[in-house]
Every structure is written in C-alpha cells, then in structure tokens.
C-alpha cells in the first residue's frame, strides 16, 4: 500500500528527504513508517517512544491502520513558541 511520507525538522535532516511516496506492504500501521526509515538509517529504529505520527494532518496512535494515499507525517518533539 502506498502512502505519502512527510518528514520534518531533525527527521528530514537524518533521512535526507522531506517527502516521498512509499510502499508499506499490506495492512500497514502508522508506526511502520519508522521501520521503513530505519532501513535507510538505523537510528530511526530507536525513535518509537519519542516520535508522534500524524495521518492526514491529525495525530494518531502508532497502531492506527493506514489507508491507500494517506499522508503520513513523522513529527519529532515539537519546539514552537
């Protein structure tokens, strides 16, 4: 299943890209984008406890079921204000 992956801030810097259509296989969960990213850079594997995932601009739990075409964003700890 294809989803649009979006990376911000330190996640983008580490992965080296900000946006990419990726195939996550069958019945993927939101948290699996970290496994996809860990294939590029193993440091992503340790992020599960700190990162949040947003699907279509809303926070979701890491076991949220993804749908074809979802925009899946990796949200490192925010620091606005």
């Amino acid at each position: 299943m294809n989803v649009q992956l979006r990376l911000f801030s330190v996640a983008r810097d580490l992965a080296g890209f900000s946006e990419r259509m990726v195939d996550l296989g069958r019945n993927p969960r939101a948290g699996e984008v970290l496994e996809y990213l860990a294939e590029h850079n193993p440091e992503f594997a340790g992020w599960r406890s700190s990162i949040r995932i947003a699907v279509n601009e809303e926070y979701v739990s890491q076991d949220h079921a993804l749908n074809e075409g979802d925009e899946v964003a990796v949200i490192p700890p925010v620091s606005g204000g």
Partner: protein
Amino acid sequence: MVLLTSNPIDVQTVLKSVATPGSGGIDIFIGTTRDHSGGRAVTSLEYEAYEPMALREMERIERQARKKWPLEKVAIVHRLGSVPIGEASVVIAVSSAHRKQAFEACRFVIDALKKEVPIWKREHFADGTEEWSGQRNLTLNDKSIIGN
C-alpha cells in the same frame, strides 16, 4: 484567528483583532527569542512548521479554550523562518469579559501550543554551530546521538 507568518508580528494588530466592546480584560503572551539557550549564546532562531497541520492544531486549541472558558476572541499567531533576537516568535491574545478567564485561557493556549503544534525551532549559536531545539531529549531517551 490563527495565523502563520514569515513577517514580523505586529502586536497592535493582534490586539485589535481581539478587542470587543464586551471585553473587560485582554491577556497577551509574547514569546521572544532569547540571546541565550542552555548557557550558550544564540544569534538567531529559525522556525519550521508542518503548516496545514499546525493551523488545524491551533484551531483545535482555540476550540478547547472556548469550551473551558467564556471568551470573547482568541488570536494565535506564530512566526516562521528566521527570527532575529528580541523579536516575537509567537503572540497569543485572549479577550474576555473578566480578567481571570483571559489569563487562564492565554496560558492554556501557549502551553498547549508548545506541546501539540507541529512547529520546530532551530537555534543558531554564536560559536557557529546550530541545532534543532528540544531534540536532545529525544536522543537521551533513545540512547542515540541524533540531533546533538
């Protein structure tokens, strides 16, 4: 009113946007860029956002505040891009018939913004280095060295 802007934030304009004849008190919080962070000299800051989601989160926070307190108007404005030292990175303004509600809601909004809204700050230090703010915890929690 929620807004992301790459221009300097005009506090007077934000203030006007929340002033109503029924307002007895307006509380405004202004976050400004400090010249130091964790003991190091900072020369400038840069903010990045996941813009459409940041606006949605800001609107959600405004709705939450309105559920908790009887408010007249709420304005949440965050600056993006480079912000020189001493300038406002964020301005929150809340008007209400009574000051207690304005204070409590304003503080709620800035606290929620700092926790929930997908905006990231990058600090440029006087020693020439730069880093994403707040990622040190990420790396400590996760026993990795990302973001230092």
